[in-house]
């Protein structure tokens, strides 16, 4: 047993942190707030240059050959700096899904899927993903491509062009984009000329094991994205706490720093408590999910009932999301209270971090959705 990060993992995390500290400044986020864009292509390029889009991709396919734990570590950093754009959807969603398919179902993974993977790896194409066609797509209006991976159906790649009508939902976080497809039903998308299947055989012709594997690959994709969200939430929370601590050290009222009063001390101690107890479940779930997904090909050969086993991994992913979501929500609330009026102003950066929290709490499953997944496993199995 060893619950510590390797030196390599720490270097990956810290290096990215340094880069983002220089490149991804609050002003960049503020620019997006005050413009009609949602993606900063320069920032996007910085990540691509670091090769991070290939974090989950094997080295032999041009990636970094790392796993879910490393993914989560970089997402925590990206969250800390409120990095904008469909990073979760591109890295963990689209690329993660394609990589899993290539490993688990190589016989269904054809040239088109491979080409798509290569396009996404370079970072030159922006892609998002939806697991239900009826739901809004993160950054759909800014992406070039979207993948639609519905349950018990063929996975599709969709080119996003002007005649696909996407309407943005007004969000509290103006640097985040959620787009609803309005002029096509899910069924329409699948028959549209813009949509190309990502597997080489029609879904209805697949054998039962392949169907099971398709399904579980989809579930893993959902959970990997959920973990990325948890990591971003924790990153946001830790930025919020750190900057609040700095503020209350300096701001004086009644002749003393606000941070010297016990009420404020206890608020921020509670924030720290929430963060500290949310991080181990996140790393634990990421580590185990990686174990499971990288063994999936061999498990399936051995005829294990992997779908049943998988529900414990789902539970742990949901546990991580509930705790990260709560920690971030609590930090946001206590930070605003500790800032007083200044935090309530547009000019101060705090609100951009808070609003990102309020959006990410509800992406890839709300807190209640995840809480119910835990409850179902704990109370009913």
């Amino acid at each position, binding site marked *: 047993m060893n619950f510590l990060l390797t030196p390599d993992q720490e270097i990956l995390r810290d290096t990215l942190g340094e880069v983002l500290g220089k490149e991804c400044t609050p002003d960049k986020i503020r620019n997006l707030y005050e413009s009609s864009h949602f993606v900063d292509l320069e920032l996007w390029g910085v990540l691509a240059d670091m090769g991070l889009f290939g974090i989950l991709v094997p080295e032999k396919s041009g990636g970094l050959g790392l796993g879910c734990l490393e993914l989560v570590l970089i997402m925590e950093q990206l969250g800390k700096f409120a990095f904008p754009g469909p990073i979760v959807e591109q890295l963990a969603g689209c690329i993660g899904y394609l990589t899993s398919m290539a490993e688990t179902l190589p016989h269904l993974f054809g040239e088109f899927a491979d080409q798509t993977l290569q396009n996404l790896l370079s970072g030159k194409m922006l892609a998002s993903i939806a697991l239900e066609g009826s*739901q809004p797509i993160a950054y759909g209006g800014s992406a070039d491509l979207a993948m639609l991976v519905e349950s018990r159906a063929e996975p599709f790649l969709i080119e996003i062009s002007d005649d696909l009508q996407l309407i943005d*939902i007004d969000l509290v976080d103006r640097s985040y984009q959620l787009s609803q497809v309005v002029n096509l039903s899910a069924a329409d998308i699948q028959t549209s000329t813009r949509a190309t299947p990502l597997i080489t055989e029609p879904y209805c012709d697949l054998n039962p094991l392949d169907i099971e594997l398709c399904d579980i690959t989809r579930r893993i994709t959902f959970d990997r994205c959920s973990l990325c969200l948890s990591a971003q939430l924790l990153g946001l929370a830790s930025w919020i706490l750190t900057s609040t601590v700095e503020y209350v050290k300096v701001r004086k009222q009644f002749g003393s720093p606000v941070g010297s009063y016990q009420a404020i001390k206890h608020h921020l101690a509670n924030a720290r408590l929430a963060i500290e107890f949310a991080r181990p479940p996140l790393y634990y779930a990421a580590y185990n999910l990686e174990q499971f997904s990288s063994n999936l090909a061999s498990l399936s050969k051995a005829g294990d009932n992997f779908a049943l086993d998988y529900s414990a991994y789902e539970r742990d992913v949901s546990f991580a999301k509930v705790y990260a979501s709560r920690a971030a929500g609590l930090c946001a609330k206590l930070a605003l*209270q500790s800032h007083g*009026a200044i935090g309530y*102003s*547009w*000019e101060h950066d705090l609100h951009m971090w808070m609003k990102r929290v309020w959006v990410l709490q509800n992406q890839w499953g709300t807190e209640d*959705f995840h809480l119910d997944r835990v409850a179902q496993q704990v*109370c009913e199995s």
Partner: protein
Amino acid sequence: MDLTYTEREIQFRDEARQWLEANAPCLPMPPGDSEEGFPVHRAWEHKLYDARWAVVSWPAKYGGRDATLWEWLIFEEEYYRIGLPQRVAQNGIFLLAPTLFEFGTQEQKDRILPRMASTQDMWCQGWSEPNAGSDLAGISSKASRDDKRGGWILNGQKTWTTRGAFCTHLFGLFRSDPNAERHKGLTYFLVDLSLPGITVRPVNKFDGDIGFAEVFFDDVFVSDSDVLGQVNKGWEVAMATTGSERGLSLRSPGRFIAVVERLIALYKQEASNSGDLQNASDDQNGAVQNSYGQNIGDLRRQVADCWMKAQAYKLSTDQTVSLIAQGNKPGPESSLNKIFWSEMDIFLHETALRILGPRASADSEWMKGFEFSLAGPIYAGTNEIQRNIVAERLLGLPRK
């Protein structure tokens, strides 16, 4: 104890309800804290004034109806019941006016109150300064005596002045005795914002609306007739005002009861949608899920909690009003009120957002309400300060 309304009160309610239903503007109105929304609200509140609903509890000669506190509560209930928003004139009519009635000269009352009621003058509050937030006694803006002209020269800066960018007048505290410390040596001034030397800088709230202003005073002359109460006794005068702010007048129960009614309707709608859409997906425990996979029924008790909170606040207010009607003055108990309504307001909105599930992230009315609610524990004395007041003044615990 007598928990029934009089005939007169019932009639008053009917009249208010009928008028409001017949005359309410299109809802929802644009935000009152925005450049486009403020005039819309001002016009609506002027319409209220024309029908003598703007300041029901004031004397008729200033535009009111001499309504009792009970009638005022009834009016507020009816006002919020149909979904009307908080008043943009509130800092004038609810904070300054009670102070004017208590401390103002006849000339001041006659000059100021009718124009305030009719929305001709819009008043904002000048308490906070960059280094005086919860610590109001840290005020450093100065008033220097100008005997020649019979008045005072104001210098300094006020901040977090709600709707200051749109208002015409400001009431606030300035340090008139430079040698006095903390609560002493402050004077309460009534200032026309169009006076020479005043600069108003709009400040956006975090929702993007211009909710605040910074107001800069650079050798601004105000005459003696614009001093409210005694010179150097501004703290005592102001405390009367913050007493009303913390106590009753800003937050009538009607507002929260209306929020809870909308919340219950939202819950029922979601629960019945889930029931209709997802009968087949009921899990083995009989839980009903909405289309986002959340067990909506698990929020039932939380919705009940919302109802209880609003109801408890209403009943507590009824108790307070009964005391006031008997001649008592609101004391430090108003800190309990401030804590309760501000934390309730957050809870109500958090509950709504939970019911909304993933749609909670949208910039909806509920989200705006949530953002607004977060200011509650901060302004008018943070809840940390309020809890200190409860502990020290109500419970008698020692100051540090």
